[in-house]
């Protein structure tokens, strides 16, 4: 094996400049492929970043006003969800993993702590909401079942609000006024999507009781146990049917309730990016083919120049296969080494771009939503390596055939 490499190297050393120039075209092809794939990945990651705040298989249900009259009811009737809707879906719908109702307090309840106060949108939810919207708990806990059952007056705040109201004080366990009622701070979180989002969460049951909500809820959110769009769509349809029966509106009434199926949109976006990725591969492979043709070209010239040497080798006992192997392995060797450097260089550039992006994103969070963590992962590297070896074999094939067809007599008389 070592012998074999020595044999290849000794011939390549003959034409250092040429080997390097040939290698460059392949290295360039691979470099471009890696850059393109990395950029495609960056765009996709940016898109996925947008979905990061929500579970990708979440279904969000909002109520609206009926657009059609139905069973004697006039159109334009407002649909109001209640705890019974929540109970019904939880009880009767299979295939859901989390469900939560939500209600909001908009301007009615300012938060006050000592001399600081602020007005924020307060979201009142169930404990399972944690699995629907993805929150990064920094300290403490989210709302739990006991809070709901016992109507406890607890509050979960996002970091920016803590910064404003508490300054340097430790907020955990402190009491803060919501409207005129004291709530105890039990948890602090950061929003994944928007680090500066000012959000407040209260237990739904407590809020309904304290802030005069009755049994009304503004909207519903569920996550499903399925991962396919079809199943999610089916669940969405079932929810629509159930609610239509209960609230007596036409099933095909598009204004009565609005359902946002995250998975459907996520998959659509993913589909777009799968398309982009395929496009990128095609361009990348085309670029590599240009490199292959270059290698092939050079190898043909090389074989022609080495006609005599190959003739000698054949005369003293080289089989055609050993000649083919000689040319092929040279070609694979050039492409593999050059490709490796191209790949390394491409990954280096991506890494650099990533570093620049990270520092840019600190000033402007929007950057992450467009372009985030461009990188070529291990599987790409493996694929690229396979492509390279194949490319080398393809590049060497025609020259190798030519070399093995050399007749020793003619070669030796070729003065």
């Amino acid at each position, binding site marked *: 094996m070592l012998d074999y490499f020595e*044999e290849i190297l*000794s011939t390549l050393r003959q034409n250092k400049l040429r080997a390097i120039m040939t290698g460059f075209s392949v290295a360039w092809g691979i470099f471009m492929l890696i850059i393109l794939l990395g950029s495609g990945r960056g765009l996709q990651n940016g898109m996925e970043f947008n979905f990061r705040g929500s579970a990708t298989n979440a279904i969000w249900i909002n109520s609206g006003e009926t657009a059609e009259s139905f069973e004697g009811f006039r159109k334009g009737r407002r649909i109001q969800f209640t705890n019974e809707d929540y109970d019904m879906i939880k009880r009767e719908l299979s295939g859901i993993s989390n469900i939560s109702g939500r209600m909001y307090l908009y301007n009615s309840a300012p938060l006050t702590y000592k001399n600081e106060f602020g007005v924020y949108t307060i979201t009142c939810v169930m404990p399972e909401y944690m699995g629907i919207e993805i929150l990064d708990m920094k300290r403490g806990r989210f709302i739990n079942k006991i809070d709901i059952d016992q109507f406890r007056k607890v509050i979960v705040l996002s970091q920016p609000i803590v910064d404003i109201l508490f300054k340097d004080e430790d907020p955990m366990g402190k009491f803060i006024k919501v409207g005129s009622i004291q709530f105890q701070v039990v948890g602090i979180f950061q929003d994944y999507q928007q680090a500066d989002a000012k959000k407040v969460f209260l237990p739904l049951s407590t809020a309904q009781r304290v802030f005069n909500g009755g049994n009304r809820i503004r909207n519903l959110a569920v996550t499903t146990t399925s991962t396919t769009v079809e199943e999610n769509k089916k669940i969405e349809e079932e929810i629509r049917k159930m609610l239509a029966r209960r609230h007596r509106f036409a099933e095909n009434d598009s204004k009565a309730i609005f359902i946002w199926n995250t998975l459907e949109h996520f998959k659509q976006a993913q589909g777009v990016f799968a398309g982009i990725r395929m496009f990128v591969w095609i361009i990348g492979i085309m670029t590599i083919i240009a490199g292959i043709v270059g290698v092939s070209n050079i190898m043909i010239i090389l074989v022609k120049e080495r006609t005599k*040497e190959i003739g*000698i080798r054949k*005369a*003293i*006992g080289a*089989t055609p*296969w050993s000649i083919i192997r000689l040319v092929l392995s040279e070609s694979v060797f050039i492409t593999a080494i050059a490709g490796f450097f191209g790949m390394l260089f491409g990954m280096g550039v991506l890494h650099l771009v990533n570093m620049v992006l990270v520092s840019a994103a600190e000033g402007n969070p929007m950057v992450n939503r467009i372009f985030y963590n461009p990188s070529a992962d291990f599987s790409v590297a493996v694929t690229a390596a396979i492509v390279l070896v194949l490319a080398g074999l393809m590049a060497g094939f025609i020259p190798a055939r030519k070399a093995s067809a050399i007749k020793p007599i003619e070669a*030796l008389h070729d003065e």
Partner: protein
Amino acid sequence: MSKSIIRVESLHKSYVTGSNSLHVLKGINLDIQQGEMVSIMGSSGSGKSTLLNILGILDNYDAGGYYLDGIHIQKMSETRAAQYRNKYIGFVFQSFNLISFKNAMENVALPLYYQGIRRKKRNQIALEYLDRLGLKDWAEHLPSELSGGQKQRVAIARALISKPKIILADEPTGALDSQTSLEVMEILKDVNNTGISIIIVTHENDIAERTQRIIRLKDGIIETDKKNGNAKKQITESVIIP
């Protein structure tokens, strides 16, 4: 007692180029014994190179028969032909045909590479052969750093390393001055004395005079085939092969 190493029976060969057919060998009969040193002479176009190519299994023939060490050599795959060449035949060429980017030792060792012998071992064997030809100190030199005579000695070492039955030499002295030519002929004689048959293609009379048998070709047939009385078969102690 003597054994036929090369036997050729009414050998025919023609080259077809387009619509023209050139009949080069028109029925050659030849029998070369083991240990013979033969020269083949003839003007250009007489078919002597073609004959040498066929004897060296570098080319096919059209009709007749060729037996090398009793084996019938006929149309065979290139791989088989390569194996036979490697095993039975050593080549020495006019233009030496050394590989320019390999040093003397590597050039000599090359036939063993194709026998699959490990690098260390084959280089060691190559050094032994170079030593016998007085070139041990030049083992690491590239062909371009050697004189014509030295190059031909390296080529002879390469031809010998696979222990062939026969050495085919195509104008081995054609590119050498007369003094060096004599030296090379002496070496070939030494090789011959170890029992290896040697066929030399040449157009120089004084080279042919040093062989035991001279075969003259003309227009594709053997014109004369006579023993050379001048070159007595000297039994000298060989320095080449123990």
